């Protein structure tokens, strides 16, 4: 147990990876989703190519390319930067798909109603479509947050000193694999529990009165 402080040193790194990647991934993902749904052909096609590449290849391979591969063409990142880039770009692809589903779930008549008031397409998207689409994407987004928290653990392979890295370090020196990794598992569990609890509250808070039913359906389908 005297190694607990060393394990906890990894916590801020894991949280940084999670929060940074989910946020940047969300911004890029939103642009990708909008580009795919509303963009002209070329833009829409470009978005699809991005999504296929990042969802069709393993995250670990993406991280290896960024960290070990890119130096060959003169682009060198520190482990943590490489991890932040890789996780963000990867999460963007998944978040884009969740968001696209939610955007397309909003009837096109909502957009038409906005346009008949004199709103531009962009105004309708911003004030009519997105406020509704984002709400129904919360359950799926919550899954992504939890996946991402857990997937950050593979950054040990590119030498990032996160929670799992510290545990591996301690375990290999002390040979106390079982205790060490059980403690680490518990820490991950604690965070996933807290995160889903928070997202749940947010979801309830922003729920549109009178349409609890649609939300339940969205959750079940997520």
């Amino acid at each position: 147990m005297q190694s607990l402080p060393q394990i906890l040193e990894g916590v801020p790194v894991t949280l940084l990876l999670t929060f940074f990647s989910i946020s940047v991934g969300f911004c890029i993902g939103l642009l990708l989703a909008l580009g795919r749904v509303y963009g002209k052909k070329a833009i829409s096609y470009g978005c699809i190519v991005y999504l296929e590449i990042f969802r069709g290849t393993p995250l670990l391979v993406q991280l290896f390319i960024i960290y070990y591969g890119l130096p060959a063409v003169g682009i060198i990142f520190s482990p943590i930067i490489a991890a932040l880039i890789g996780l963000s770009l990867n999460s963007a692809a998944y978040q884009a798909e969740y968001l696209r589903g939610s955007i397309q779930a909003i009837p096109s008549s909502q957009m038409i109603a906005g346009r008949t008031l004199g709103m531009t397409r962009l105004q309708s998207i911003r004030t009519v479509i997105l406020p509704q689409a984002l709400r129904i994407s919360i359950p799926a987004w919550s899954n992504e947050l939890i996946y991402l928290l857990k997937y950050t653990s593979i950054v040990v392979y590119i030498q990032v000193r996160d929670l799992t890295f510290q545990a591996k370090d301690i375990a290999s020196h002390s040979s106390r694999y079982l205790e060490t990794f059980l403690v680490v598992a518990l820490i991950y569990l604690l965070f996933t529990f807290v995160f889903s609890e928070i997202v749940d509250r947010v979801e309830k808070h922003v729920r549109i009165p009178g349409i609890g039913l649609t939300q339940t359906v969205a959750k079940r389908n997520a």
Partner: protein
Amino acid sequence: MHMLEVKEIHKSYGSCEVLKGISFTVDKDETKVIIGTSGTGKSTLLKCINQIDPPDKGEVWLDGEELTNLSTDMNRIRQKIGFVFQDFNLFNHLTALQNVSIGLEKVKKIEKEKAKARAFDELKNVGLEKQAGQYPAQLSGGQKQRVGIARALAMDPVIILFDEPTSALDPELIGDVLDVMKSLAGKVAMLIVTHEMGFARNVADEIIFMEGGNIIESGSPEKMFNNANKERTREFLGRISCLYGKE
């Protein structure tokens, strides 16, 4: 000069020609009702007017501006053309009040407090001041439609297009909506697609009968109901009056 002028509108979807050369006019504060069987392009015609679904051929003019001209800024023009939908199409994430005020805030750029005050007045005019804070899912169909009308009116339109505004309503809720529409007659121009013959007869300045993408006949309610020129008009009005009541 007429306020709204529709000239020889054609519209096709694939090989199906829905509108085959429609022309008519609407003057300031005039009420015109379009009737006809379902699937004759009445709704399409309304969407061709505000360019939500632009026509393939023909012209639409409003207040001396050609809407079918691609260089016309339709976002500006649409503020002057209210639209009331069959399925209401209220913004589900906004309260009744916000539904009415959002156009004022986002499109007309009126400051929030003033927009809200104006929106509240509009809701009051349609008898819904008590429902201002409720969301669409908490309102009845008739209430939703009255919010829809208030939303259109708040923008100070010169004309309002109604696309079967009572067709999705339970029979006992139709009256409230029709009363609101009646109260608007003569204050703003209205172009109304409806099956409510009693309403058409009492409120319309002119009735337009459409079928198969053409205007078969148009005229005053008096003429259309009592001595229409075309056999087909008499047949249709006779049949539909049995269904929807003559009043």
